[in-house]
């Protein structure tokens, strides 16, 4: 029973704290809705693949909520189906980059000396490499048609800025009296890193994760738009890319076709970023235990 | 700029009224958890030329009360009900009814607040001179030469070398120097009342002494009317004519400094005195007050001190006592102040020079014997 009650209580507190910031909570709800739509939606909304020449470029209506494309296909169904891949790639990238940044940033701060120098030296080198052009070049050599691989690549290149931030946070936490007390009690490096330092950076880590996700969304869409990533399935990026290459920006009629995926991305990004306001509250240990 | 201390003192003689009167002042803060009752029902007259110490622990409402007088409370705070009357030149205003501009005038010209000398009491990118000049300009004093003369005079008064300080940035000064600069700046527009919030806290002992000497000079030579806010009983003993003990937002005892330190009648004041050692004199057993200060959102019933009080009875749980006269010019808010008096007859406080001298000589004899 306790096994269920514990996490349930945790969830309850988190939700309650998230409501403390209204904008943040709305962001959270919208994010949740988009995630639901992208993950569960495809089971309810079949992807419209039939060409209907009599319905080309229709504006939004009760029949086609987001209008239709150049072949008369329903845009809404494409939006519903096109979110999953974008979000998946972004999540893989964000998870990897946050993981690297937190592990090595904390280690660097905690160990100091040579370890710190090596990690920071390497970080600075990666940091100086312009991420997007490198990815563009890489895409020419490696066929990035596997979504996970794309996420891993994005993640492998986007951790340095976060690592620096985590390290400086950990450095200041390290000087705190409770860490000194843990040293005096000889509680060991593992305890100090994972029990003393990381929990106090949780807010920061969670927010960094969401921000890394939004960054990965943009990079990924950028790559797709430039046609550097031959992702086959339909996703928001591919939708824009296709609309773009077919000159959709030149017809007023085609507006809905290019606007809708852009809007989907913008709303997703906006809601995620707004949600961080609530996350900040939800992971604040002080508020957490007061609730 | 022309009104000297003499005009000020005459005021009280003329109309027999105190320059600052607080009547039934309440301050509360709205928070998510509920209403914080920071100050409750404070009525107090500040006499011309006197120095009054507000003492109490964290959460006693002493700082909130000080900030309420100059209306520098955060926006979530509400001062009501209550009246804060300020009198000068036969004029009388309710500070709580002043508009923004009038309040700004009042804040420097009539009543200045001196904050604890942390760096954040200054604008870090402005030199001391610029801070003074900005303040003067904001109050319509545009004579640069005169402002500078005044500042130099004040810096000399607080025993700082004007040449060294006037063009320094705040971070270039030590804590003690910053506290003195703050004091000098607060005197720039010649206010009549000074409110000093923890004027010596966080300063080194020898620096504390310098500040204390300076404040005594200000009080004795210049006749300033001052309110000291401190958690430190020693500051009250060193500087105050009268002392008000605050607990849970109320004044629980008010009297002349000697009355408070040698003849306390409120159990909380007695508890504080018994908890604080003096450095001079023999060994005195100290006692702390059991329990913790109350939750200001969820205050205890009756007398707010009753859960920590050794004298408490059932009555204390039900009825909150008002301040009543326990001696000439000495009031205490306790149903059992007579019991406190009896307790002090049984177990006197070892205070005052005589008892301290006895203790020292007694110790010396004891050592000589052993």
């Amino acid at each position: 029973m306790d096994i269920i009650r514990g996490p349930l209580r945790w969830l309850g507190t988190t939700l309650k704290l998230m409501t403390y910031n209204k904008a943040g909570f709305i962001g959270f709800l919208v994010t949740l809705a988009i995630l639901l739509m992208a993950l569960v939606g495809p089971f309810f909304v079949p992807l419209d693949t039939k060409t209907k020449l009599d319905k080309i470029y229709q504006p939004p209506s009760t029949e086609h909520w987001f209008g239709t494309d150049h072949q008369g296909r329903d845009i809404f169904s494409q939006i519903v189906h096109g979110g999953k891949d974008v979000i998946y790639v972004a999540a893989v990238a964000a998870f990897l980059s946050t993981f690297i940044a937190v592990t090595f940033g904390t280690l660097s701060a905690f160990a100091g000396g040579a370890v710190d120098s090596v990690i920071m030296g390497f970080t600075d080198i990666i940091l100086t490499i312009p991420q997007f052009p490198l990815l563009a070049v890489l895409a020419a050599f490696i066929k990035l048609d596997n979504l996970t691989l794309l996420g891993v690549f994005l993640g492998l290149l986007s951790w340095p800025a976060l690592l620096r931030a985590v390290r400086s946070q950990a450095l200041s936490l390290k000087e705190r009296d409770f860490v000194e007390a843990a040293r005096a009690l000889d509680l060991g490096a593992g305890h100090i890193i994972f029990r003393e330092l990381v929990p106090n950076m949780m807010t920061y880590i969670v927010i960094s994760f969401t921000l890394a996700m939004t960054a990965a969304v943009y990079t990924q869409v950028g790559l797709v738009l430039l046609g550097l990533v031959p992702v086959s399935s339909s996703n928001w990026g591919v939708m824009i890319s296709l609309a773009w290459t077919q000159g959709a920006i030149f017809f007023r009629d085609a507006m809905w076709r290019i606007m809708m995926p852009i809007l989907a991305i913008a709303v997703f990004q906006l809601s995620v970023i707004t949600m961080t306001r609530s996350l900040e509250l939800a992971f604040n240990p002080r508020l957490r235990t007061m609730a | 700029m022309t009104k000297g201390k003499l005009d000020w003192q005459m005021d009280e003689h003329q109309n027999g009224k105190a320059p600052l009167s607080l009547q039934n002042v309440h301050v509360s803060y709205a928070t998510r958890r509920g209403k914080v009752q920071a100050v409750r029902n404070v009525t107090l007259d500040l006499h011309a030329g006197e120095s009054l110490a507000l003492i109490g622990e964290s959460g006693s409402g002493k700082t909130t009360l000080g900030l309420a007088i100059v209306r520098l409370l955060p926006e979530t705070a509400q001062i009501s009900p209550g009246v804060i009357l300020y009198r000068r030149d036969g004029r009388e205003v309710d500070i709580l009814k002043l508009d923004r501009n009038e309040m700004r005038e009042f804040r420097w010209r009539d009543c200045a607040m001196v904050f604890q000398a942390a760096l954040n009491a200054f604008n870090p990118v402005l030199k001391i001179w610029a801070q003074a000049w900005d303040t003067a300009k904001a109050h319509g004093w545009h004579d640069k030469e005169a402002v500078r003369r005044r500042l130099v005079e004040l810096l000399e008064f607080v025993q700082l070398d004007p040449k060294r300080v006037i063009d320094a940035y705040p971070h270039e000064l030590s804590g003690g120097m910053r506290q003195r600069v703050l004091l000098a700046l607060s005197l720039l527009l010649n206010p009549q009342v000074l409110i000093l919030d923890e004027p010596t806290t966080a300063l080194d002992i020898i620096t504390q002494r310098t500040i204390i000497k300076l404040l005594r000079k200000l009080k004795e030579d210049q006749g300033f009317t001052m309110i000291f806010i401190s958690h430190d009983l020693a500051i009250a003993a060193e500087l105050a004519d009268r002392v008000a003990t605050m607990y849970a937002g109320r004044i629980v005892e008010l009297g002349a400094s000697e009355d408070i330190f040698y003849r306390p009648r409120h159990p909380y004041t007695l508890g504080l005195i018994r908890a604080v050692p003096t450095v001079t004199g023999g060994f005195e057993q100290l006692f702390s007050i059991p329990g913790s200060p109350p939750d200001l959102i969820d205050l205890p019933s009756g007398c707010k001190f009753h859960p920590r009080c050794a004298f408490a009875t059932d009555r204390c749980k039900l009825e909150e006592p008002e301040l009543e006269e326990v001696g000439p010019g000495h009031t205490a808010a306790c149903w059992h102040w007579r019991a406190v008096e009896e307790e002090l007859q049984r177990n006197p406080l070892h205070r005052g020079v005589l008892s301290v001298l006895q203790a020292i000589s007694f110790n010396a004899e004891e050592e000589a014997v052993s």
Partner: protein
Amino acid sequence: MAPILEVRNLTKKFGKGKETVTAVDSVSFAIEPGETVCLVGESGCGKSTTGRMVAGLLEPTSGEVLFEGKNIKELDSAGFRRYRQSVQIIHQDPYASLNPTQTVRQILTAPLLRHNKVKNRAGAEARALELLEVVDLTPARDMIDKYPHQLSGGQRQRVAVARALTVEPKFIVADEAVSMVDVSIRVSILTMLARLKEQFHVTFLFITHDLALAKYFAWTGRITVMYLGRIVEDGPTQRLITDPRHPYTQALLSAVPEADPELAHRKRQIELREAEIPSLLNLPSGCTFHPRCPYFVPGECDQRVPPLEPLDVGGRVACPVRKHEHVPLLV
């Protein structure tokens, strides 16, 4: 009796080149088991740095720390860890010394489990409850699942003490342990510390800027006064408080504000030649107090560093000029 802790010529420098700051300069003292010693001085005098070196949290630039007669530098890693656990520190700020993300239970059980002081989680909990009783945090059952911010300053400080006790230390460095606690509660914490001294045979090094507290806590012990990194005077508390010999100790004692209006107005006022304390970056030559000292002797005080010499009335003083002069502090 052999001292439990001894430091010899302990020196700590921070920074490099021109920016070098000598925080602690050739400090030597010894503390016997069961003795209570207070290290007193103003900010920047090196008292906390000394405390942290004693607790093995900071490495001295030179000099030695001997614990139970053994130089800690020469200990093998097991020996060093034993020493590390035997000497605990209690910090000044109870808001910073406890991890805000951990409950009292987590704070107390982690060291118990790590060092096998108990068999299992249940044992750890029982011991944690016991320790909460020891530090008067009762009812312990109500306290154990609280987070630090749910406790008052005094209660947090008690948790910090309980945490130190988990590893059964022999020596505790209490660095300004009560100066951020409300006045009305300070004494109860001091009383508790004094009780631990008896109950667990812990020896205390009590670091404070508050001479009145030092006097109260170490009435039967000793006080050591530091100024700008050096010891200027030490001795039995009762002698040092009533008959200080170093002009700095005298200035300090006369400057302490007294919570007694009559005393406050009857204390001797010692005028220093210079009110500001010199910068650690640019220390005066000879006796570092000489630019402020009212008894300054040119050619003597500014020329050589005065040695810490034994006094006939007990203790040591680093002032050859004034060491025989008694100065009454009340007038």
